[in-house]
């Protein structure tokens, strides 16, 4: 069954990497829902509405820990705890470690290979629930 990825973004602009990842996920067989810039509450709502199997979130500008903490809270509030989450963008190492502690399945910065991102997306959607990993 085709897996659905909701690809969201913290801000607009500087979208080169965002669309590159969208295309890579498509070429890897995912159905990609490109939402563009959304706040955590909107991402959670779109995930429910689109019945997405995975959220891939690009973070360039906002504080990654604040965004992910907010998103997890919004997801829990509407019972989406099991949907795994990947993060890509400019994320400082110390923040990346914190995101993994929060349960993010993979954090990908510049220098990542596209196949590593799509492999991680495959593993995350193959599992029963999101949880930790990556």
């Amino acid at each position, binding site marked *: 069954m085709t897996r659905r990825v909701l690809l969201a973004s*913290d*801000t*607009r*602009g*500087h979208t*080169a*990497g965002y*669309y*590159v990842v969208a*295309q*890579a996920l498509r070429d890897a067989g995912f159905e990609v829902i490109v939402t563009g*810039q959304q*706040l955590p509450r909107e991402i959670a709502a779109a995930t429910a509405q689109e019945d997405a199997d995975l959220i891939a979130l690009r973070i*360039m*500008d*906002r*504080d990654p820990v*604040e*965004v992910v903490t*907010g998103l997890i809270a919004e997801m829990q509030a509407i019972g989406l705890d099991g949907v795994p989450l990947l993060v890509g963008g*400019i*994320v*400082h*190492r110390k923040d990346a470690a914190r995101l993994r502690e929060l349960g993010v399945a993979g954090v990908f*910065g*510049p*220098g990542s*290979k*596209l*196949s590593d991102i799509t492999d991680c997306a495959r593993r995350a959607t193959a599992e029963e629930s999101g949880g930790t990993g990556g």
Partner: protein
Amino acid sequence: MSDSRDGTGRTPPAHVTTSGVELGSFYSPADVAELDYGRDLGNPGEYPFTRGTRPSGYRGRKWTVRQVMGLGTAEETNERLRYLLREGQTGISLTGLGYAHFESSDPRAAGLVGRGGVWVDTLDDVDLVFREVPIERTSINQTGNSIPAFCMILATAKRRGIPLADLSGTIQNYVLPWGEPPKYSGNHYVDVIEYCAKHLPRWNHTSISVRNTRESGISAAQEIAFGLYEGWYAAATAKERGADVNRVGRRLTFFLNAESDFLEEVAKFRAVRRMWARIMRERLGATDDRACQLRFHVQTSGVALTAQQPLNNVVRATLHALAAALGGAQSMSVNAFDEAFTIPSKLAQTLSVRTQQIIQLESGVTAVADPLGGSWAIEVLTNELESRAREIFAELGRLSAEGAWRHISACTRDAAYRRQLEIDDGRRPVVGVNCFVEEDEEEPSFGPVSHRAEPDYDPAWREKQIRRLERVKRERDPGGAEAARRRLAEAYRLREPIVEPTLEAAEAYLSIGEIVETLAAVAGETELRKRGGFMIRLY
């Protein structure tokens, strides 16, 4: 092009530039036999300015050292700015001004205040950004085209008694297709051009920011062609609305990239200057040679920098900066080596300033204008890039303006994906990423230097900013603020030029959030987005 055999009968591995030019192993006079010195090159300072805009090159005046910077709130940015100026930076480039179209107290500002540039709400903030900064003699580049932020810079100068005519700087304004020709009433991009032409003779009203387009992975030839198209469109639109093309041309500047394909980059700067001069003279009818001179700021490549082995980025950025110097840049920002993984640190920004100082003062390359001019290889590449860019430019010209912008957008997405695939499969070598990888690379090592003493982000900045905004609102004259707000809404409704009433609103201490809200209340956010200049698309 020269035969690529090396004399032994074997064909050595070719280098194909980003624009698809397969380099010969050497070039000779036969490769440039068609070149006419007077027509195609001219001396530095002579039309078509292939060899540069000034006869004395950098001897009369070095390029402006202008690191792009903006962090935290006004205080943090002011402190870093004064530090960089003390360390020898000669110009200012601020990022973040007016990027958000809402106040710091808005829920949309969560996790955003002070990241990705300086946060400003009102004139009070901009005034503080420039505290003890001699803006009457230091040029300011405003990243982005926020008209409220631009007006707050002007208002800061007015408060200090500096005549607007003395201010020098650049607003990253450009012209997007909007409005009915020939008047384009309500097109705010053109409003900025007209306002600057009237009141700010030393302010660059347009900055064709094709640098950021290049960052997606397009070729040097595409960078040239897309930039020329956008530049042509800006000048042509202003001309149709009645502006004097000579006047417009003198203050229209370009914002270009410097990438890793060194010879091609040097040739790119030369080719784009030659092509722009001809477009201005032949297509737009400019008669003043100064209006035909392409002047440009370079921000060296960010996309070429790597998170792995980050000190390698110092070497890359030096090569990028050297290409820009040999290409005759008027102004430069060298990207910080740590920017692939963090908000640039003080150490990295200082090194970027030093990189430029070392090229300017120690390398000797600034003594001779266009020192690579006349190299057969460089002249061939300049010609090749011109002919490729001319084809792309002609292709854009066959589309509607809206269609051209869509086409550029599609090209960039495609290029970015291809670039990444080439890196992933090793066709495009990137040292430390797909070759000479250091296994088990953990934390980047910076030797004995403490990389970052200061925080890169403090969530408390937002609380501080909200308190300052509240204070400004308490202390401002409520009647004056309300009058300015009404006048602004009325001007917008009537599609009058928008800069003057926005300046009044800034001086009345309305926040950027309030200004945008006032305009959006008249005809909606979509309309305001189309008219441009209020940056309501970013967050």
